[in-house]
């Protein structure tokens, strides 16, 4: 029988099936961050301890300061406590932590792949919705809530009802400056923010094959914004080259054995999916969001849409509300919308390739006087690599603030937030009302597009900027 990649991984991790349709799945790898203290409280409350601490890996990201690497310098007591609790919990139970101030700390979804912890064919979970990121290497990766985190800690298993599958196929070469970020924003604009609900999304097609590992991580990261339970890309030579030599990747004979297993993972040619979607890769453009859902995305040459043209009254009312919140007028070209702040970072776009793409735009240019621009690398490793390449000098010379790794302005749990009414060009994943601080106005876009906005002070087609036309 032919199977999808999802089915192959699912079958391999089944501990048992109940008659009522629930399956108990065994978890290979469990990632933790500093927002997960509740799960340990739940565990302790039941007098339990982690069943398989050797399968758990932790790093603080949500509450760390991006101006210092010292726990004691985290100003807000609550934030400091979150980082300290992760440290205490991991020590107490013998869990590996890439702690604050060590060379491997980073955003949990940047740390996992770069350590080689995210591997093809594994079942990986983390108490964070953007766990879908890890599917980029061909893993099945579920984001879970804290009660489920406690359950996985205690039993190393997870109850699931089998999700449906959706194939999203994109053929055709992507144009210049059309990145993984633009691809996923175009997908979500097409299927809607709930389009993938109940489904595991598998991305296929030549445009996806052509993406680097970083691009695939960005793509899978935002699967949750399309409603997906998980997102995945079949492993191929790009994946194997990326993983080879990573600290936790198999080595030597184990690597060869792993390669044999991994090569059998991709969906069979005639595998059936419950839903199919396709997009033309050659038609995709650099994208920018204008509303408060990631589905509200447009190509950079677009104009702010008019609620009068909405499909129904509900959408009209919703669009009007979003335009009011975002301080936008229907009909304005996106390229005329001025920004106050630029944030290049988050688990969506803070990897080395993202840093390079933004630096290529910043090189020899200056951030507009009206803009405050930040670059927050996703991990200590990314930061170190970027500095070895001199990218930090380029950013600094252009007027960007080069900061310490963490989630930062993506969610602002560490206090890095925008002021009410400030418009932020952000490489993160959610443009929800208040996501980057009460009243903050978030527009999602790629790192190069964010850098272009920083330079010109408004949204700009980065291709035109680089061609000297903007």
């Amino acid at each position: 029988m032919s199977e999808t990649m999802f089915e192959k991984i699912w079958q391999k991790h089944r501990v048992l099936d109940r008659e009522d349709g629930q399956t108990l799945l065994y978890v290979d790898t469990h990632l933790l961050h500093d927002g997960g203290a509740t799960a340990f409280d739940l565990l302790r409350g039941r007098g339990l301890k982690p069943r398989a601490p050797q399968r758990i890996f932790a790093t603080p990201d949500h509450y760390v300061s991006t101006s210092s690497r010292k726990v004691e310098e985290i100003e807000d007591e609550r934030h400091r406590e979150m980082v300290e609790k992760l440290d205490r919990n991991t020590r107490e139970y013998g869990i590996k932590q890439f702690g604050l101030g060590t060379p491997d700390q980073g955003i949990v979804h940047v740390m996992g792949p770069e350590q080689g912890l995210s591997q093809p064919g594994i079942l990986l979970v983390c108490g964070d919705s953007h766990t879908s990121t890890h599917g980029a290497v061909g893993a099945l990766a579920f984001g879970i809530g804290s009660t489920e985190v406690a359950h996985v800690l205690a039993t190393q298993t997870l109850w699931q009802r089998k999700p449906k599958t959706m194939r999203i196929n994109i053929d055709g070469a992507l144009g210049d400056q059309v990145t993984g970020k633009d691809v996923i924003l175009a997908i979500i604009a097409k299927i809607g923010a709930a389009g993938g609900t109940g489904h595991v999304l598998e991305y296929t097609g030549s445009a996806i094959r052509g993406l680097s590992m970083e691009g695939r991580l960005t793509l899978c990261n935002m699967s949750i914004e399309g409603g997906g339970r998980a997102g995945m890309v079949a492993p191929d030579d790009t994946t194997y080259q990326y993983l080879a030599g990573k600290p936790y990747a198999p080595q030597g004979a184990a690597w060869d054995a792993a390669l044999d297993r991994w090569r059998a993972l991709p969906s069979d040619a005639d595998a059936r999916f419950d839903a199919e979607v396709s997009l033309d890769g050659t038609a995709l453009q650099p994208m920018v969001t204008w509303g408060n859902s990631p589905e509200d995305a447009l190509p950079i040459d677009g104009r702010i849409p008019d609620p009068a043209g909405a499909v129904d009254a509900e959408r009209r009312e919703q669009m009007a509300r979003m335009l009011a919140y975002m301080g936008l007028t229907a009909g304005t070209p996106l390229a005329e919308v001025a920004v106050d702040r630029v944030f290049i970072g988050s688990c969506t776009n803070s990897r080395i390739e993202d840093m390079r793409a933004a630096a290529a735009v910043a090189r020899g240019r200056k951030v507009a006087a009206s803009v405050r621009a930040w670059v927050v690398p996703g991990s200590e490793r990314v930061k170190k690599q970027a500095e070895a390449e001199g990218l930090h000098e380029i950013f600094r010379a252009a007027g960007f603030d080069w900061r310490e790794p963490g989630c930062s302005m993506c969610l602002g749990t560490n206090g890095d937030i925008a002021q009410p009414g400030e418009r932020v060009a952000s490489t993160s994943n959610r443009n929800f009302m208040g996501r980057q601080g009460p009243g903050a106005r978030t527009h999602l876009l790629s790192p190069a597009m964010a850098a272009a906005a920083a330079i010109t002070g408004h949204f700009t087609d980065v291709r035109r900027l680089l061609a000297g036309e903007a």
Partner: protein
Amino acid sequence: MEAFRTLDAVAVPLPRPNIDTDQIIPARFLSRPREVDHTQFLFHDARRLPDGTQNPDFNLNKDAWRNARIVVAGRNFACGSSRESAVWALFDAGFRVAIAPSFGDIFRNNGMKNGLLPVMLPAEVVEAIIAQVEADPGARIQVDLPAQTVTAPDGSVHGFEVDPFAKHCLLEGLDEIGLTQSYEEEIAAFERRFGRENMR
């Protein structure tokens, strides 16, 4: 977990699609432990005007709906982050049922594990119920989990689907960890079978 069987309560309409978990509980309250009463964080920013005073137009602030225990919302309710505190905030404020045409998957899971029943009904049914509770603020809805039905203010009865396992746990207020531990033999056997190649 608090068990849930039936509920007869006031339903408050939140007739918008894509109400995300950042709206239900803004990120700056996520560092609060479970022991803290999360009522004050529920829709914290949406409930207030920019000057910090209560927004009289937000339905949860209106007298008729102050005692609501059921929320009826637009599609893709509670999409976004996995924060379980979105459920806690609703739960602590007294809510035990959320009705919508669709939900964020992780929220649905979190709800069922924390005594908050997510009920999916067809979009036209949800629209009709919203129209009824808007027309008659304070109108009540009956939810029966064993029978898997919702009775709207106009008396119409609507069946809904619920995962049998999650239903069982919610009806009994069961702790899932305890239940899973009863499968210890199967898990241990799996670990042996899963083998060296997959064990770190």
